[in-house]
């Protein structure tokens, strides 16, 4: 076919695709800009520090302490599963048995506790934040704050960011201990690896920087979970159905951003 205008269905589909893609790119840029604008508003000077402090303490309880149960449960069982799977996959006599403990520790510290627990918290905490702020938006409570002269973004979002950034590293450290403990229990109770060898494994070639790396990731992920979810909730428009949609988006987008940032941080901090 020679050059010239194309009127076939394929060219229409292609131009429609280009239009949609261009629209989506503009949409994405709009949301990124809007997100950073919200962050800027969030970090303006609080009207009354004492009220923000009270709210931060409440959020630490709601978003942090009340997540401890699920974090503990997941950590123990994940540690146990990592240990069993590692042992069943290294049948070679050339690989020493303490590698089971070593692998359980490395998997837990480097990836499971900071990343997987953050993904789980994005589901629990992120949906709570988006639903809470979204409900306030559709029920005009955020408008009420704005009309009073309160910086609604700061009052609602800043305590949540501080709470998660402060408490999530503690949750992750607890998760590390419990996961390694879960591995110990699974290994010894099933007879796959003795307690002594497992303990030898978890002490082999320990690099404290890996814990620092995990905590840096946790803090960044906590910031992502709270801000992405708060953004979804803060700009909810409509009714209860839209609050549900915002809540779902909060979890999905937080997870996607966490995975991308996890890759970038790993390249930056470990290589």
């Amino acid at each position: 076919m020679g050059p010239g205008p194309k009127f076939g269905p394929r060219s229409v589909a292609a131009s429609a695709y280009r239009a949609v893609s261009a629209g989506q790119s503009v949409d994405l840029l709009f949301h990124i800009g809007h997100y950073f604008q919200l962050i800027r508003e969030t970090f303006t000077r609080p009207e009354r520090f004492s009220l923000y402090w009270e709210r931060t303490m409440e959020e630490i309880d709601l978003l942090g302490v009340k997540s401890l149960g699920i974090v503990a449960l997941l950590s123990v069982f994940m540690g146990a599963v990592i240990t069993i799977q590692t042992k069943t996959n290294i049948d070679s006599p050339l690989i020493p048995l303490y590698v089971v403990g070593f692998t359980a520790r490395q998997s837990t510290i480097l990836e499971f506790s900071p990343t997987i627990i953050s993904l789980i918290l994005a589901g629990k905490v992120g949906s709570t934040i988006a639903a809470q702020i979204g409900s306030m938006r559709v029920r005009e409570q955020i408008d009420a704050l704005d009309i009073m002269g309160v910086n609604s973004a700061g009052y609602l979002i800043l305590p949540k960011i501080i709470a998660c950034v402060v408490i999530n590293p503690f949750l992750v450290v607890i998760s590390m201990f419990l996961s390694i403990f879960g591995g110990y229990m699974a290994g010894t109770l099933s007879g796959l690896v003795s307690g002594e060898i497992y303990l030898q494994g978890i002490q082999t070639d320990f690099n404290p920087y890996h814990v620092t790396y995990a905590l840096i990731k946790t803090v960044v992920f906590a910031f992502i979970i709270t801000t992405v979810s708060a953004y979804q909730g803060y700009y909810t428009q409509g009714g209860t159905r839209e609050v549900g949609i915002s809540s779902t988006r909060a979890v999905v987008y937080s997870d996607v951003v966490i995975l991308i940032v996890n890759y970038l941080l790993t390249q930056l901090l470990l290589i």
Partner: protein
Amino acid sequence: MIEVRGLSKRFGRTQVLTDISADFQKGKVNQIIGKSGSGKSVLCKCIVGLFEPEEGEVLYDGRSFHHLEKEEKRQVRQEIGMLFQSSALFDSLTVLENVLFPLRMFATMPEREMLDRARLCLKRVDIEGKDALFPAQISGGMQKRVGIARAIAMNPKYLFVDEPNSGLDPQTSILIDDLIDEITEEYGMTTIVITHDMNSVMGSGDNILFIHEGRAWWKGTREELLKSDNKELNDFIFAGSLMRMVKDTMKQ
């Protein structure tokens, strides 16, 4: 006094408000009436600064709100009280904490005085003994009254009331209207009430602005309202059978 000058607002390609000008008098209950979707709530949100208009200005006692710096705007907002259609009480706070909220955020008085002020406001709207209850535990009429108490806690110069009678029975509606009238007079506030409830208009409106298709269609007093020959205004006012009966009685 609040003055609105040549205010226009559009959302995307939809023009919602066109060149609206009006004066809202101090110490009076000024009502904005109109059909659902006529633009009255958008006008209210433009006046209080929740929406930025494309054209025009709003003057609060001579201060052009949309041209003020952020901090100055915040100060003007502290002079504004607003009762929302849904009351917009904070679910996680008790009745007393809701009224205390603006005081705790902005007032410089000791906690004891704040408590006294909040209790006084609640007493003024006839809410007593409900301090520890949460908004979900009280009726819609009570929520409106708590909303009024919260709105007047900071002793505002300007009071905005969005659809005060929605979802309320006629008796409670009258109580709320009377309360708004009394408080307006008592505090010498500039009150703006958005409503499409004709009982409320006939019962308490001092100055009335009729919005039709996003334009200031008619302005006048309650007495002038019934005598007006404006077709769109008459279609709106006399849509209900009760008001048609009033019209017939007037004719006779």
